[in-house]
């Protein structure tokens, strides 16, 4: 990304017209249209991108995060959008700080964001406000830390959690959770 050439693409122009103050930077390196927007307006931006007739980004291809350890804000949440009717693609990025790792959920815009946001929470520890059911998706509840963070060492062992390690309220919480999740005939 060494040479920032001027970008003139109808998709980016339209986005900038509507959200002049919130689009912080754009690039089209290797042909991938990219726009960085402010985290607070992410839902408005996404809803506009989906509903606008010219843009029509009806398809959330992917949602993930990148940990830029050492820079502030530390995290970047990345949305890959595609319009099935128009055929174009767009990458939306937004920065999230380490101290307050949360941003609004886009589940109301694309239902497919549900599991993707759960995965991002699970592996990066970024919370999505307004998510209907934000729990870990791959790992178990007692897992300590978020393994795709760059400061999580690959070799780290997780403690084996048994009943004996838990105090009484923890056991009760676990039983309640198991009852809710597995039913009483488990």
């Amino acid at each position, binding site marked *: *990304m*060494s040479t920032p050439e001027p970008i003139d693409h109808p998709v980016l122009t339209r986005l900038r017209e509507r959200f002049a103050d919130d689009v912080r930077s754009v690039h089209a*390196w*290797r042909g*991938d249209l*990219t726009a960085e927007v402010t985290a607070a307006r992410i839902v408005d931006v996404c809803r506009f991108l989906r509903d606008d007739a010219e843009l029509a980004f*009806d*398809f*959330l*291809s*992917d949602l*993930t995060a*990148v940990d830029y350890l050492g820079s502030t804000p530390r995290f970047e949440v*990345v949305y*890959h959008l595609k319009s*099935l009717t128009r*055929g174009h*693609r767009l*990458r939306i990025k937004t920065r999230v700080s380490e101290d307050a790792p949360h941003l609004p959920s886009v589940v109301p815009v*694309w*239902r*497919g964001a*549900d*599991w*993707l946001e759960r*995965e991002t929470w699970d*592996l990066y520890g970024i919370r999505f406000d307004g998510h209907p059911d934000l729990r870990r*998706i*791959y*790992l178990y509840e007692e897992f300590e830390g978020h*393994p*795709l963070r760059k400061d999580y060492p*690959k070799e780290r062992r997780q403690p084996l959690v048994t009943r004996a390690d838990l105090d009484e309220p923890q056991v009760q919480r676990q039983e309640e959770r198991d009852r809710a*999740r*597995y*039913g*009483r*005939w*488990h």
Partner: protein
Amino acid sequence: MRDTDAGTKGFEVSDELHGEPLEIQMGPSHPATHGTVRITLKLDGERIVDADIQVGYLHRGYEKECESGEWSQAIPYTDRLNYASPMINNVGYCLAAEKLLGVTVPPRGQYIRTIASEISRLSDHFTCIGASAMELAAMTPFLYGVQAREHMWDLHEALCGARVTTNYVRIGGLQSDLPPGFADLCREKLRLALAIFADVDRLLTQNPIFRERMEGTGRLPAPDLIAYGVTGPLLRAAGVGYDVRKAEPYLVYDQIDFDVPVGTSGDNYDRYLVRVEEVRQSARIIEQCLANLPDGPVDVDDPRLRWPAKGKVFNRMEELIDQFKLVTEGMRPPAGEVYQAVEGANGELGFYLVSNGTGKPWKCRCRAPSFSNTHAMRDMVRGALLADIVPTFDMINMIGGECDR
């Protein structure tokens, strides 16, 4: 009949025998699902009130492992994403890395990659259709499907020596050019596999039991599928002809004549029919590629990516240095980020790579079609019968390695 309140004298009498919903567990290891997944079902009689699908049983930290190795060391991990069609994953990752580097493989390499991808797609569809039939209690089509798949894996073996963990495609080229006599072997294996598959088709497509289980089940309208990010045969069966090979052609798909089959009703039977037709189209693609295969190198001529010939390494200083640097430091793509999508056997398979200019990937994300497809299953089975889960889950064709990464 239920005593609602102990304080009142009478009983509340109802015609229906209603109790509270029954919760049962399906999986994580269930004989009628070909994938490791747990489904917590809430049942009202045989009707599904709600289904909580829990994935992650095959999570092995694919991304974390990729980030700790060099760029080329991620390729073997991609084999293990969708292990039913490993070549497509190899191709997808290497295309993304090449986009990052800004290089393009010579035409012969592209043709061979196309052939390899389609062989893998055939293998995936044979597995899916065979296993689905078995889970609907038809054993013979499964054995036939596996037999047909063996022919495809023989071709994998001819290409790279391995049957499943192929590791064939390299960033900037291929592990090796085609072995001698590959075109004839490929045509012969295709003929055998398609002959077996014709029997599977005859056994299943008009089979009343099979149709009864498949027709009208698992249906979800196209706008819902799009909202969930569902792609591949599931979306095409609902009438949306989105195929990455046509929408954003990569490799040589824009030079090849093939059709994208599209269904109408979007039920499991249409999904099956779309896969059956895709088998024929993949065979067409392979035949055209074999007929038009150009001569020339398969690798890019770039010592930063591909090793120089051994004779030069032993006798010339520059090539020796190139090889030494490539072995010790690995390749170093410029800092930046790319997303590259290919058409996997189950839908859009995307790789999002971030480089910070060093020899290791900063981020090596895989957008797995099975993940989004399995997510949509909850809405597909809600309100349906318990038995409908099996054909719906079969046609979703969740591959644990790819869904859980």
